[in-house]
């Protein structure tokens, strides 16, 4: 599994590009960090890679996942997971159902699926939380639930949009380690967007800096 960006460029429709064309390759299990001043379009870059761009923006260049060009595909067909600043658990579903929402369709059977969800809950340190209202979780618990919801979908790449910036400093270190371990363990390429140099350092991969 690898994620390759070829001359990727995002511009407001009919406007000047936000940054010069970007080409890079992210190897499996590696976290590449993208840094740059706020407003440069780091999140917009992730939107373009994940297929979430709004109509007001257009994107040129190509996104290649595992040698397959996914540029023309809708977000749901790209198999690229996203984690945002907020956990964004679906408020109408229980914690377990949030994970089940993410769980890949390739896993069949009610029992098997339930077991996969319980297993993920255990790994997230959320054993016994299946029926809980996500609103009652702590910040760290929400973040871990969101991570495992994403991992259960079996993504071929991960986009991390400042996922640690809202966490307490103490929790932040734990969560960074936790996320980056999962990335290495599952051998998915990951792209991290942040302004925190600490994030880049902990990620331990190459660092790209966007300039206008």
């Amino acid at each position: 599994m690898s994620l390759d960006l070829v001359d990727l460029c995002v511009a407001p429709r009919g406007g000047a590009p936000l940054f010069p064309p970007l080409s890079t390759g992210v190897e499996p299990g590696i976290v590449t960090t993208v840094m740059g001043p706020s407003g440069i379009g780091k999140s917009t870059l992730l939107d373009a890679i994940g297929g979430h761009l709004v109509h007001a923006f257009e994107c040129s260049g190509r996104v290649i996942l595992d040698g397959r060009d996914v540029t023309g595909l809708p977000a749901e067909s790209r198999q690229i997971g996203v984690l945002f600043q907020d956990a964004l658990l679906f408020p109408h579903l229980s914690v377990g159902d949030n994970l089940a929402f993410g769980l890949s369709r390739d896993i069949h059977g009610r029992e098997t699926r339930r077991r996969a969800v319980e297993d993920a809950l255990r790994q997230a340190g959320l054993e016994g939380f299946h029926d809980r209202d996500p609103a009652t979780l702590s910040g760290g618990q929400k973040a871990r639930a969101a991570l495992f919801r994403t991992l259960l979908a079996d993504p071929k790449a991960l986009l991390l949009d400042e996922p640690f910036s809202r966490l307490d400093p103490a929790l932040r270190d734990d969560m960074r380690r936790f996320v980056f371990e999962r990335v290495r363990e599952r051998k998915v390429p990951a792209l991290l967007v942040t302004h925190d140099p600490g994030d880049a350092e902990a990620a331990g991969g190459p660092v790209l800096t966007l300039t206008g």
Partner: protein
Amino acid sequence: MTRDGRLLRGGVLAAVLLGVLAPILLGLWETGRAAFGVVPAIGATEASLEPWRILGDLPGLGTSLRLTLVTGFGATILSLLVAIGAAAAFHARPRRASRVLTPFLAAPHAALAIGLAFLISPSGWIARLVSPWATGWDLPPDIATVHDPWGAALILGLMIKEVPFLLLVILAALGQIPVRRQLAAARALGYGRGLVWIKVILPQVYPLIRLPIFAVLAFSLSVVDMAILLGPSTPPTLAVAITRWTFDPDTRMLMPAAAAAGLLAALTAAGIGLWILSERALSRLGRWWLRRGARGLSAEPGLFIATASLYGLLVLGALSLVALALWSVTWRWSFPHARPESWSLATWSRHGAASAETGWTTLAIAVLATGAALALAIAWLEGEDRARRTRARWAELLVYVPLIVPQIAFLYGLNVAALRVGAPGELLAVAWAHMLFVFPYVMIALSDPWRRLDRRLVSTAAALGAGPTRRLLAVKLPMLLRPLMTAAAIGFAVSVAQYLPTLFIGAGRVATLTTEAVTLSSGADRRIAGLYGLLQALLPYLVYAMALAVPLWLYRDRRDLRGGGPA
């Protein structure tokens, strides 16, 4: 943009153009033709100016015109002034305000008007409460407090409905402005609260509430049910006169009625034009005033008067509904007694069955109209999502078209057109006509919460592999349950309140609680009118209660959706 999105958007546009806009245009066209003497249904095919000549010769036309202008503009301007002033008192507590105001929004016009007449007429509850000890009246006094020749009672009735509506619209618009900080900044410069409101806040809010104001103006100029119940009757307002002529046994009156409907449409267009010109003039004057920098507390009494007026209107409205309930269980209540002398459920048992049947018809029409409007609104908003676009200005205007074109101007023509294809009198046709007015309100109620939904939640669902249909059904709609239910309740209340569409498209064969209540109110028995008015008001209240209760119950274990979420 996916092909699916394009298909959906195309379908929605076609449905809105054919289902909402086309009937209105067709109606206007038919009204226009009839105004120049062409009504094939009654064998008139020669175009002529005859309808206008007949109209000009009709007695009381001038008075009707004057009444329409005075009540229409009067109610709109007064409502706007009260709403703007009261908003200054309520802007910090929008939730509380909406709890207090929503019951008045939900109450049908006819029910309120019947109740208000029970309250303020010479033999009404207020007169009874103060007689004979304060007034010396042993018989109802001979003064026209309802159906007064100036239309004051009509203006009052309209204000009870329009002030809460405008106030809620203003409060929603204020949510987009950092009111508290601007208020603090301007007060630090020595401007009193009232002056800040007029000089700083109002100019920012006004552009956001223009379309609702035009809707209120168009409605006030062409209202029929309230004008029958509260307005003068000989001659009545133009809209009531048109209704009378249309249903005159003498079909020759159809043509001058059409001419008058055309006149009313032109009057409304001119009224909105005049309003826009006044906006310009006022904004110039305002800027001149602003630059002079006058400070102080000179506007404070205005705020006080507006807030007091609001409370006065709300009390009158609430008492009106109580009066309906009271009369429906009265056996004997003769003049100066402050309350019924003997109570009875006789009215309920005698008219219960008939009113229940009418109630079912009302319910069926409202459910059909609301269901269709809701489906169309969801499809429209989902189409915008799939195209990942925001709404164009023309589309925003399109939503308001049914509210800004006076009802009677196109319903008249639609009635004529329906006569030709043989559709009148059908329940479905009536439900469709209701949908024309339900759709804009559902759309307006749903648009903001829909757009406030965190787009990243939807992106997350997509990244997890959920396609557009699953995102809609499993993520967006469940999260929007509360606003969806609220929009449905608003739509339902709008449908229950419709009088003219039922009358014109139902051709007298479809009776709802509203048409029955209006008809019965002209009779002598207040008890029956009270019963129908009360039922008419209860129906939307039940639906509102359900709209509140269902999400609370379903999401009793989901804190983020129970309260404080998108509403």
